[in-house]
Structure formats: structure tokens, C-alpha cells
């Protein structure tokens, strides 16, 4: 199963948001971290693909007034999704380590 570039970012965003990952928050955090502003359509399109590939699962949240009484749809990493992130990350690191002059900082 492949993971596209934008999909990977979205998956990372969902993971980092924890329990509060739904459309608007994902979009906001992506904007904040990448400086780019994806359209809602593009974001949703990626989300549905992720869901289809079973990297994320969804649950319905409560309705709020600012959404015009509509319910939120929360996204959450699945174990499979987590594993996928892990693999991608390891792959990158294995390359990065061999690049002279590239410093790999990790927060502890």
C-alpha cells in the first residue's frame, strides 16, 4: 500500500492532533506547519483515501453551534496507519544518515 506525499502530511497531522483531529483542525495545523493552505476539497479527498486504505478510522462527534448544528467527524490513526508512518520514517532516516553534512536533530 502506497502513501502519497500529501497523504503522509495529513496522516502526520492526524497523529499529532490526537483526539482533536477533524477537518478544520487538520487544515489549520497543515497551514501552520507547511505554510501552504490546502483547499477543503483536497484535504477531504486525501482523508477519504486514507480511510479507504484503512490508515485512519473515524468517529462521529457532537454537534456544535458554529457548525450550524452539524456533527464533526473525528479522524484517528489506526495501528496500521501508525506502522505505515513508522516505516516511512525509518526509510527516510536510513537515507538521511548517509548524507554527509545533513544534521538529524530529534527532540527528546
Amino acid at each position: 500500500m502506497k502513501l502519497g506525499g500529501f497523504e503522509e502530511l495529513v496522516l502526520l497531522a492526524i497523529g499529532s492532533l490526537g483526539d482533536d483531529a477533524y477537518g478544520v483542525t487538520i487544515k489549520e495545523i497543515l497551514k501552520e506547519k507547511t505554510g501552504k493552505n490546502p483547499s477543503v476539497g483536497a484535504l477531504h479527498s486525501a482523508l477519504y483515501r486514507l480511510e479507504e486504505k484503512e490508515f485512519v478510522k473515524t468517529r462521529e462527534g457532537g454537534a456544535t453551534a458554529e457548525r450550524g448544528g452539524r456533527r464533526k467527524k473525528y479522524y484517528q490513526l489506526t495501528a496500521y496507519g501508525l506502522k505505515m508512518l513508522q516505516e516511512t520514517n525509518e526509510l527516510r532516516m536510513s537515507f538521511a544518515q548517509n548524507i554527509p553534512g545533513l544534521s538529524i536533530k530529534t527532540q527528546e
Partner: protein
Amino acid sequence: MNQQSNIPPKLAQRLLQWFLKDELLEEVLGDLDEKFDLEKETYSLSKARRNYWYQVIKYIRPFAMRGSFNHPLKNLIMIKNYFKIGFRRLKRNKVYSALNIGGLSVGLAVVMLIGLWLFHELTFDDYHANHDKLARVMQHKTRDGIKITRRPLPFPVGRELREVYGDNFETVVMSSWTWGHVLGDEDKGVLKTGAFMESEAPQMLSLRMVAGDMNALTQQNSILLSRSSAQALFGGEDPIGKSIKIDNDWNVVIKGVYEDIPTSSSFNSLEFIAPWDLYVSNTEWVKASRNEWDNSSFTAFAQIKEGLTMEEVNERIRPAISAHTDQYEGWSDKNEVFLHAMNDWHLRNNWENGVQTGGAIQYVWLFGGIGVFVLILACINFMNLSTAQSLKRFREVGIRKAIGSVRKQLINQFLTESFLLVCLSFLVSLALVLLVLPQFGVLAGKQFEIPYQEPLLWLISLAVIVLTSLLAGLYPAFYLSGFQVVKALKGSIFHSNSSKYLRRGLVVVQFVISVALIIGTIAVRDQIQFTQSRPMGYNGDNLISVSMVSDDYRGKKEYLETQLKDARIIESMAMTSSPMTTLNSTVGGFEWESKDPNFHPHMATNWVSAEFGSTVGWNIFEGRDFSKELVTDSSSVVINQAAVTYMGLEHPVGQEFTLWVRNSYRTFKIIGVTRNIIRESPYSQVRPMVYFLDTEETELEYYLLKLNPELPSQEAIASTTQVFEQLAPNVPFDYQFVDDRYAQKFEAEVKVGKLSGVFAGLAIMISCLGLFGLASYMAEQRTKEIGIRKVLGASILTLWKLLSSEFILLIVLSCALAIPIAYYFINDWLANYEYRIDIPWYSFLLAIVGALVITLITVSFQSVKAALVNPVKSLRSE
């Protein structure tokens, strides 16, 4: 909307709702709303709205679209079902289906036939590639305050148009009239019609060359033949380079062969083209008229330059003749040159006082109108039968709705059924058209072919199918699908007044059209009969006319007369300058003592031999006929009654007048007055006319032979042919029966009469089919009522009255509406004819009675059947 609302744009939301999958809607709308709020607070309302729109537009992605956008074939199952149900209904209601399909297919067939005819008429002359730019040069002459429009032109006009007005024209071509000439050599000759034209003519007419050179007419001894002329002369041999003679006199070499010009072209009879120069240099009188502006004996064609319109050119060339004739002494005509565009030749060729007044175009409108009406009739039938039927279907609609059918599906169902019927009808009508096409061709006097390769045909057919199914299916579809479930199931929709009035209205429309068509047909027929029974003024029986196509015929009257009379083949024989059924010449310049100097009379002239009167059997009304014995008769004339009135003579016999004839002023004496003879259109007044005696036989172009009536005409013709062929063995003997030619003058009207008769008949038939269906439906609806009435003692007669009276009322109303409409159109049509009937009032009565009788028969069949039903049976159920 100045005040922007605080909520996301409604239209954008609606758009989203329209295309977005239902399951996504809640989430997407929610996210967008939340984002909208966020933006509104961080930036501004307008930016938030703009962004909302942006997001919605960006959301148009395949993954989010509704199924119907992605997979239109998902509906296939439903469409299949519509067709299945449709077919089942057709099978179940055989009578209604037959009535519906029958009516509609007859209607469609009529429309198709009319369409073919219109196509033929409207694309007339399209064979010539430059038809938009081609024209005939013509002139209006103002004479004594009246403008008359004529084709003949003076010789120098071609030169004038080229030299003075050359900027306007691509080409100008002088031409002789298209007449019969003998082509061939000493052994074999064929009679072909053709013309002498200037060398650019083949190029201008874009003739399609089979062989040879289209520009060969620059050589004076050349000729171009049509393929069939070449075939007739040489069979399969290569004709190019062969020498032949025109009229046994002029030697020419065949330089080219062109494809036959089709019947849908005005140049259809151009079977050969010979050089104009050949004609001019070999014909004395033509040579002499080179610079004569007062001798209009030729015709001319022109192609205007690209980018110019006929009107613009007309504006400029108007004085082309008058600039010269105005200098003539005693010239009283005002001449205006103009172009008659080729696109108008066939359909617009009547002028009245210099103004274009139409022509055959009125028939295009007439039949186009009839076509539309017949289609409307057929659609009305369909609607009527469907709405009537629909009342039986209200339970079906109720149940369908109850189990979840939405209105759209019901509409689709009904439209599919209508589409199905129309398609079937279309197939049936196509078969009908193919079946009757030959007969229709005979009726309309044309050869029709279905232009299969024409994409327009298929486009129009498709349009007609779609339009008809919509037109015929929309009302039932919307009316039926609009039932409320509860009412439909309870059955309380029975007598909806609106649909009842609609049906009645439609029946009235149908019968207005049908009755008007019947009245029109009777009027056309009466007008034709009236004119046909108009006295011709002579006796055309057994009279044949032989044109002196060959010089071998000339001056042989004595010989022919002795030969033919001795063998008792003919009774008498005469010669004339014009055939009996046309007039070739009109002259002016008559002067007599008591004439008003401001009156410039022009009269038709005809040079004849002394036996003319007795051969054609004219009626001398006053004075005497020409006499062969009196030498003085060479300056005697016989005039017709119209001329007496025209000249204003009280005592015509003995009156003398002078006229410029053959290079000198001569004095003529009127010796007799004949009753008017119809030489031109039988619908017009007879023109004033003078008969001159031509003892020198210089003007005489036709022999008139009165065949012996005791001899079978075929035998007489065969013997005559022998005599003529002895005279000129290589000239094919060509003759015409005068009364046949006379009958041809009615051809156009007879055609219209027949066609309108057929269409009126079909219209009535279609209307009656509809009426029949309606009546049977009504009777069915009222089965129980009739049963109860019968039990209570109603007689069959009362029941019949009850069931029929409504229809009778409708028909009477239709007639009342149809009469003024028919009156208006007939009046309009009759105004075209000088010699015409009054509006035949009896035709109104006839049409009314006819419509009533037909209706009664149609309706009674059903009402009597209903009235005869045993009440036990009709009341037993439920």
C-alpha cells in the same frame, strides 16, 4: 442585496448540495461552516464568503460527486423498466395503441412528404454553385402609368452592363431564348432545346463537364452538349471533335459534354449551348439589332461580384437602358433595368406594378402551414387519448407513489411511453412514405428522392421525434404525475374539469383545421372548374401545332396542304407567328385619327395566314374574316373584342390605323372583330390583340393542322409524320396537341387542388380517429350511468342523444370558428386571379354538413354500442 448576511452564501451551498454525495454532505458543510466562521472573525465577512465559494468550487472532484454524475448507466435499469411497462401497456390496450400509432404515423408521414416537397422547392437551383450571386437581367417598363415587368432585353444591354457597370459584375452573359433546334447531320437529326450563349456561360452556371473544355464557346464553330444529347446523337461513341449541324444549316464541332442539368434547376431544358457569336453573325435580324435599344428580343444573365448584394447592384444599373432610349424620339416607356436573383426564380417570380409579389412561395407557405397543422392534429389526438386513458391509470399512479416512486420517475415513465409510441409511429410513417412516394411524385409533378446522405434530414427527423414525444407526452406526464396519493387511491379524481375542457378545446382545434381545409379544397376545385369551363374562343379539338424547326419546312404549305388534304388526313391548315397557347409579340406605336395623343397603346400582335380563322374556328363577331382571294387583305387586320374596348372604337370595322412595320409606316384597315381568344393565362383578362395577314410568310413560325375528326388521331398523326418526314428526312417530326397545351395552363392549380384535397382528407381522418377514441372512452366512463338510465326506462334514442350531443356541439362551434378563417384565406388566394369565382358559400354549408355527418357516424358507433349494452351486465360488477 446590500446587506450581506452573516451566513455562508446560499447559492454556493445549494450548488454543493446538488453535486455532492449525500453521505459527505454533513461533514463537508460542517467543516466549511466552521471555517467560514473562523475566517469571518480573523479577516472579513466578504473574504470569508469569497473563500467559501472558492472551497465549494474546488470541491468539484470525482470522489465527491453523486453517482448520477459518475455513472449515468445506473439509471439503465429504471429506463429498461420504463420501456417494459410501456410495451406492456401497448399490448394491453390494442385499440388505443392502434388509434394512437395510426393517427400519429399518418400525421408524421404527411409531414415528411411535405418536408420533402419543401426541401425540393427551397433548394431549387442550388445545383449551380454560384446561385447566391447569379441573376437574370430584367426590366420594368412604365407605360401609361403602369409598370410592367419583362424579361426581353435589347441587344446592346450586355455590352452596356460590361462596359459602364462592369465593377458590379463577375460576368455578364447574353443569351438567346432556350428553344428547340435540330441537331445532327444529313442522316440523323434530334430535336433538342438549347440556347446560344456567350462563352462564360458554362463557367457561370458551374456545369459539370464529363468531357472536353468548358471554355470552348470562344470559338464560333463550337458547341457543348449535355450528356443525354450526346448519347442521343452518338450512342456510346466519343462525341468530342465530331461535326454536326444546327437546324441543318450551321456547322459546329462538339467541344465538350456536360452532365445533364437536373430537373431541380431552371436550366433543366438547356440540352446544348452554342456560341452567341454564331447566332449573331448568321442571323440577319439579330445582326441588325446590335445597336438597337428599342428592340427587346434577348435575355441576359449576370453574376455579381463577391461582397455586393443584388439590391446594391440594382440601385446602380437601373438607368442602363433608359440612358439610351430617353434620347429616342417619341419613346414613351420608362425603362428600369434590375436583377432577378436566381434564388428567387423558382418561388418569387410575379410582379405587380414593379413590385415583387411572390409566386410559388405562397404554396411553400400554404403546404408548410398544412404540414404543421397536420402534425398538431396528430399530437392533439395523442394528448386526448392519453389524458382520457390516464383517468384509468390514477390507481396505478397512486400505488406507484405509495411504494416510493418520485414524481420525476412518473414523468419519465409517461414520457418514455410517449417516446415509444412516437418512435413506432415514426417507423410506420417511414414505411408509409416509401410506399406512397412514387404516387406523391406523380401528384406533385416532381421526382422525389429521399436525401439519405443529407445530415439535415436526420437532424430534422430526430428533432421531430423528440419534439413530438414531448409535445404529445408532456401534458399527460405532468397531469398524471401530479395526482395526490390519497385522492388517487380513493378514486376521487374522476371528473377533473380542467382536463375535460382541455380535451374539448383540443377537439375544437382539430375540427377548425379540418373544416377549414375542406372549405379550402372545395374553393380551389371550384376555381379550377370555373376557369376550365371558360370559353377558349376557338376550337382546340384535333388541332395540332408544328413548329418550323427546320428551314426544310418553310414555304412548303402548298405542298403539305395538297398531300395531307388529298389523303383526307386534315380538314384544313394554317400558319401563325405564335403558337395558339402563347403570344410572342407585343408592339406599340399605333396611331389613328380619333386617338388621344397622350394614349400610347401597345397591343399583342399575331401574324397569320388567311386560313387561320377557319382552322382554329374563331367567332367573327362583326365584319368578316380574312380572304385569300382579296389582294387588299394584306393590309387588313382582324382585332379582338378586348382591342375594341381598349382602342375605344364605336365602329371598329372600317377604321384605319398606321403602324411602323418592317422598316416603313403602313396603313391597316380593320375588317373584322373576333370574340376574345384565350392565348395566355386563362386566369387573366384577354389582352387587346391584332391579327395581321402575312402574305409573304416571313413571320410565320408554326403550322396549325386541323386533323380529320373521322380518323383516329393516332392514325392521323402517323400519316402526318410520314408526310413531314418525306419533306425533311433528318428532322424528327415534333408536334403538339393544342388542347393538351391549353390543359397545361391549369397544371399548377390542379396540383394544388389535388394535394389540398388529399391533405384535407387525411386531416379529417386523423381528427376522426381521435374522436372515435374519445367517444369510446366517454361511453366506457359512463357505462354504469347508462345502465341505470336504461333500468329507469331511457330509450336507446335518448341515450344516443345524450352521448352524441356534446360532440355535435363541439363540431358546430368548430365550424363557426373555421368559417371566418377559411373565408379570409380563400379571399386572399382568389385575389391572385383576375378571372375568378365568388367565394362559394355552399362550400361552407357542405363542409359543416360533412363534418357533422362524419362526426355522427364516428360517435354513434360508440354511443349506440354503449346504449345497447344489457344493463344487467354493466351493473353487475362491484
